[in-house]
């Protein structure tokens, strides 16, 4: 409780990400800054998991940090490039699920149950027997899912095994030093990653006093006792966005995501300039301003959107008229 979990991104990754770990790297609460720190730390043999694995995950593939992916959507493979090549030449192994599949598997992991049933995947080629041991995969047959029937009504379903990542890297709006995290807005599968992962590393736009958390505990998405490290990292999601703080930098994203995926040289040049040389996210933001001008972040400044209107009160009576 009283032990601060606040630390730098480089320390957090060094302490809580081990080579070979299964790492939740999602799309919605995209922790670009933490993924950059993983690249800097030169972690190896990681598996990236997420309902969708965003461009920050692409960097883990290109840097050789991650050689496996378990996901429903791989942003880096959307268009021709290195990630598609790696999947085709076997240097990036993959097990394909779907957004819902991974989200439910994370929920099952969080719930401590062995699997979760779904009626998705029925009638698809995912379940083809000759695809269960495909050369691109790494789980092996029988471990990816199981077709079953309900003991109550015979309904066919697919049993998806629980997924407990070794570690999750996530970005959110705010937290206190104890690691109580508050987030708002549509959150994708990140909600369950906070609970499924054995270790949780979260970067946030703002560190707030515990009183701010306790003033609205319904806004908390994970309590501090489940969090290993909190990193104060303004613009930690850039070039993705953080609701209420800045929007997606689509220009930067479109330019870089195509470029880094084009050739090894392009990737290395990007990594040297934007990941290694800056040293941390603060350096990255400084470089962004040097490179694009002091107004580099103006385009993503929030200038629309709403805030709560009506009062919310967690009110009760502290003196009662009590008769037994």
């Amino acid at each position, binding site marked *: 409780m009283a032990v601060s979990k606040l630390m730098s991104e480089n320390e957090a990754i060094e302490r809580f990400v081990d080579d070979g770990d299964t790492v939740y790297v999602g*799309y*919605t609460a995209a922790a670009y800054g933490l993924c950059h720190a993983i690249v800097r730390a030169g972690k190896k043999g990681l598996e990236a998991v997420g*309902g*969708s694995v965003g461009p920050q995950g692409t960097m883990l593939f290109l840097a050789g940090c991650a050689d496996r992916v378990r*996901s*429903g*959507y*791989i*942003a880096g*493979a*959307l268009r*021709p490039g290195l990630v*598609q090549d790696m*999947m*085709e030449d076997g240097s990036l192994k993959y097990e*394909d699920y*779907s*957004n*819902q*599949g991974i*989200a*439910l598997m994370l*929920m099952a992991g969080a719930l401590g149950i062995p699997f979760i049933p*779904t*009626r*998705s*995947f*029925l*009638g*698809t*080629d*995912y379940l083809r027997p*000759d*695809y269960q041991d*495909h*050369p*691109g995969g790494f789980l092996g047959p029988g471990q990816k899912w199981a077709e079953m029937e309900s003991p109550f009504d015979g*309904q*066919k*379903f697919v049993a998806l095994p629980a997924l407990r990542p070794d570690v999750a890297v996530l970005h959110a709006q705010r937290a206190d030093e104890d690691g109580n995290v508050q987030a*708002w*807005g*549509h*959150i*994708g*599968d*990140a*909600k*369950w990653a906070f609970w499924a992962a054995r270790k949780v590393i979260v970067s946030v736009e703002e560190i707030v006093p515990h009183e701010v958390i306790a003033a609205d505990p319904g806004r908390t998405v994970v309590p501090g006792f489940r969090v290993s490290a909190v990193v104060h990292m303004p613009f930690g999601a850039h070039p993705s*966005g953080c*609701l209420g703080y800045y*929007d*997606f930098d*689509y220009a930067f994203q479109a330019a870089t995501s195509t470029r880094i995926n084009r050739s090894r040289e392009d990737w290395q040049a990007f990594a040297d300039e934007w990941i290694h040389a800056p040293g941390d996210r603060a350096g990255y933001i400084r470089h962004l301003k040097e490179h694009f001008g002091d107004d580099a972040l103006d385009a993503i400044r929030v200038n*629309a*959107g*709403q805030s709560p209107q009506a009062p919310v009160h967690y009110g009760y009576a502290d003196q009662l008229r009590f008769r037994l």
Partner: protein
Amino acid sequence: MTNPADDYTLAELMCIVAAREMPPTGVVMLGMGLPVLAGTLAKLMHAPGISLCTEVGAFDWSPSPDVARAPIGIHDFNLNDGAAMVTDMVDALGTLLMGGNVDVGILGAAQIDRFGNLNTMVLGDYRAPERRLGGTGGNTEIACLAKRVLTVMPQERRRFVERVDFNTSPGYIDGPGARMRAGLDPQGPNRVLSTFGVFGFDTPDGGETGSCEMVLEAIFPNLDPEAVKIETGWDLAVAPQVREVDPPTAEELSLLRRLDPYHFYLTPGRY
């Protein structure tokens, strides 16, 4: 209806026709890509009563009439502005979709086949891919579990194929009864909206009976059914009466273009 706009692309009309296909009310789950643009257009013009939802967790999104853009994908933060509820993916693809609350799913894909199956995964053999794609996202569960599916796809012979290379998203699979044998519910009436026309499926009961094959029902102005057949990879069934699709109205076209200010959706080669 006002004078039809005479200067429009087939892709623009495809999105407009998709919007026209929306029911007046019901819960609509937006897939990735063009469905977001078409759904936004429908909500603002053709079907204000629908409840637009995304797998990321925005429920019943009601954009203001002067919204600056259709969401740039389903992660756009502007989906939080006007939503009645924002939550997570298990609530969206689980509670909402699996729970039976989604009336219409609107999807895109890399390939579609004669039974309306979709492929978002791979071109060629899954075990030795010619070209690997990004993956299915929520496409699979929407196809499995929505009560109706609208598919928006450019009419190209390489994409309208006899059999999808990988069935990520079941339509009628391989014909009548197949969905039920697989453990899925009947689904429909489904529609495909392409850059050439509008397709239905030959089944009166969501896949129990009928051939369950795609049927050309309506065609875009100044196009010939033969042109559609040329861009279709199987011997396409054609309805006895092929209706001609109304061209875009000036209002439809101007709103559609206003909703895509960065040409994120309608830049040729991106859809």
